[in-house]
């Protein structure tokens, strides 16, 4: 019996070539969902198999990889994916946004602006922004092909009629270069503006749904809205309790059983960097901040 052996970054070279062709097509047609022959990956569908395949296809030995989930480098799935590439590709990994050449993410875009030469890879569960309005692939492809996007505004209209607001808070649809309506993956709409005109290359991988799409650097990305109900991002009333940052996305942490709460940066690297720079939030004790490593198991 032969025991299994695996290639650099797990995928065989033929598969990587196939994925790279799809990525290039996606870059050529920003926002268009390119079907690709998604492979079975050694982690479950839903855990980021699309992002992992895209990362595996673009990763070279000199790359420095950062993986985040919910903005944090130390969430279990981020740890697991980072370990996967450290093992199968032996690449350097980092938690520093600025040091990374490739950033794979689930549900967030880092707070620190990305720069030219960086690639951010999004994990996408449902790439079709119209899926919950029209379940049929045959129909949604025609809608994209003919730009019949009235339906998606019906959804926004209904939100306002019912709630007085557009009630979509994440996976908020965007229009790319005034052509394709695109699902930005389930990032909070807070992050949508960061996609517009970013100098970094943005790649999106949906493994189970077998789609790849892309935003080349400096692509025009607009969140859908109405003239009299313009797109707005979430605002937080208080700064981060640890690093005092404002204008960032905060996680609400319930700190006891009496309902006490504090708000801290969802982007852990951003928060740590600020604290290293000497920023101090109201939730930190006066003398000497420390990051305690706890064993969660």
């Amino acid at each position, binding site marked *: 019996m032969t025991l299994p052996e695996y290639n650099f970054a797990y995928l065989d070279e033929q598969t990587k070539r196939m994925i790279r062709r799809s990525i290039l097509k996606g870059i050529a047609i920003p926002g268009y969902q390119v079907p690709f022959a998604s492979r079975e*990956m050694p982690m479950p*569908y839903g855990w980021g198999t699309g992002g992992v395949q895209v990362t595996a296809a673009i990763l070279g030995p000199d790359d420095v990889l950062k993986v985040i989930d919910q*903005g944090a480098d130390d969430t279990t799935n981020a740890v697991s994916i980072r370990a996967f590439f450290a093992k199968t590709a032996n690449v350097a990994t980092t938690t520093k946004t600025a040091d990374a050449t490739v950033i794979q993410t689930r549900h967030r875009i880092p707070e620190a602006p990305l720069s030219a030469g960086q690639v951010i890879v999004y994990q996408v569960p449902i790439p079709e922004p119209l899926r919950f309005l029209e379940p049929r692939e*045959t129909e949604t492809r025609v809608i994209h092909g003919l730009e019949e996007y009235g339906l998606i505004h019906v959804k926004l209209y209904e939100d306002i009629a019912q709630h007085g607001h557009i009630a979509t808070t994440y996976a908020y649809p965007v229009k790319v270069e005034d052509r394709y309506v695109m699902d930005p993956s389930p*990032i909070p709409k807070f992050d949508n503006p960061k996609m517009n005109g970013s100098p970094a290359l943005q790649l999106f991988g949906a493994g189970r749904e077998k789609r790849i799409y892309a935003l080349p650097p400096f692509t025009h990305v607009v969140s859908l809205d109405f003239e009299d109900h313009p797109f707005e991002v979430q605002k937080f009333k208080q700064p981060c309790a640890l690093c005092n940052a404002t204008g960032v996305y905060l996680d609400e942490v319930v700190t006891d059983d009496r309902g006490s709460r504090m708000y801290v940066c969802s982007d852990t690297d951003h928060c740590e960097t600020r604290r290293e720079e000497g920023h101090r939030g109201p939730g*930190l004790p006066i003398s000497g901040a420390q990051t305690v490593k706890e064993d969660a198991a």
Partner: protein
Amino acid sequence: MYVAVKGGEAAIANAHRLLADRRRGDRDVPALTLEQITGQLALAVDRVMAEGSLYDPDLAAMAVRQSRGDMIEAIFLLRAYRTTLARFGNSRPIDTAKMRIERRVSATYKDIPGGQLLGPTFDYTHRLIDPAMAGDEPVDEPLRRAREDERRAPRVTDILNDEGLIERDVLSDEEPGDLTRDPTAFPADRDVRLQALARGDEGFLLSLGYSTQRGYGRTHPFVGEIRIGLVDVEIDVPELGFAVSLGQVRVTECQMVSQFTGGGEEGAKFTRGYGLVFGQSERKAMAMSLVDRALRADEFDEQRLAPAQDEEFVLAHCDNVQATGFVEHLKLPHYVDFQAELDLLRTLNTAKAKNDEMREAAE
């Protein structure tokens, strides 16, 4: 003071260690051997090979052991390995007419050339838990018929085919589609649909097949034939100019003879539903053939109203590795998006409270 939860890495390592412990169980009990699993849990191994779409009993047995008997997990392990394998070429189509038959039954004829063979079936067992299963009682050797190489057992559908009573079996040299190498486009062709069904979840197909019998897309099926046995896998070697045998695989084939289609120049004919799976699994092969036939509704101008007739629905949801992944991913952290929803809900409720207040004041 609040400390962010750290140590994902250590947590994962510890969890894996605990998993290994639970998998092994009591160290005083001997570990399962692969021979035991392939030999005594053969149908579990067969299912893992069928839905993992890789014929390798030893690896499938390892996967069953590694997954602690969780079948979908084992199927997943095999799939994730299969996807890394290089393709050397395509085999010739297997010829089930030349199968070394272990079991063969037809419901459409009392007797057929080559005979009906019950084989190793649960069909007529009484489902009483056998006290002998608590121990290791001696088991009688099975009776064996003399091997009759010359004995022909033509497929029942071939008999109908020769009489012109069933839609013609069209031979094709076209390369079949491969949904593991090309993204599926809808509408899909029958070759791709059959491939999806062959590796589809047994339970899902069973329920869909059942639904067609209860009126959700009726196909009026008769089991033309089910046969289980070993078939040769051959591959053409261009340098040699002939095909060589790579070995044998055990398969289950079900040919369902279904609702006839009306007249025209060719006259009325029965239609076909086809099922083929690795290993021994009649349930899966039969369910597959029912669903295959139901999915051919357009070919026969039948109205597509039932779930089993809906190609996008069936193909998009029959894969249990995909299904389990997406269902189970809900347990991954979603707190960033949840935070956004919380925030919206609070805003909406604040607005409502303010409105109510103003209304009360006005009244």
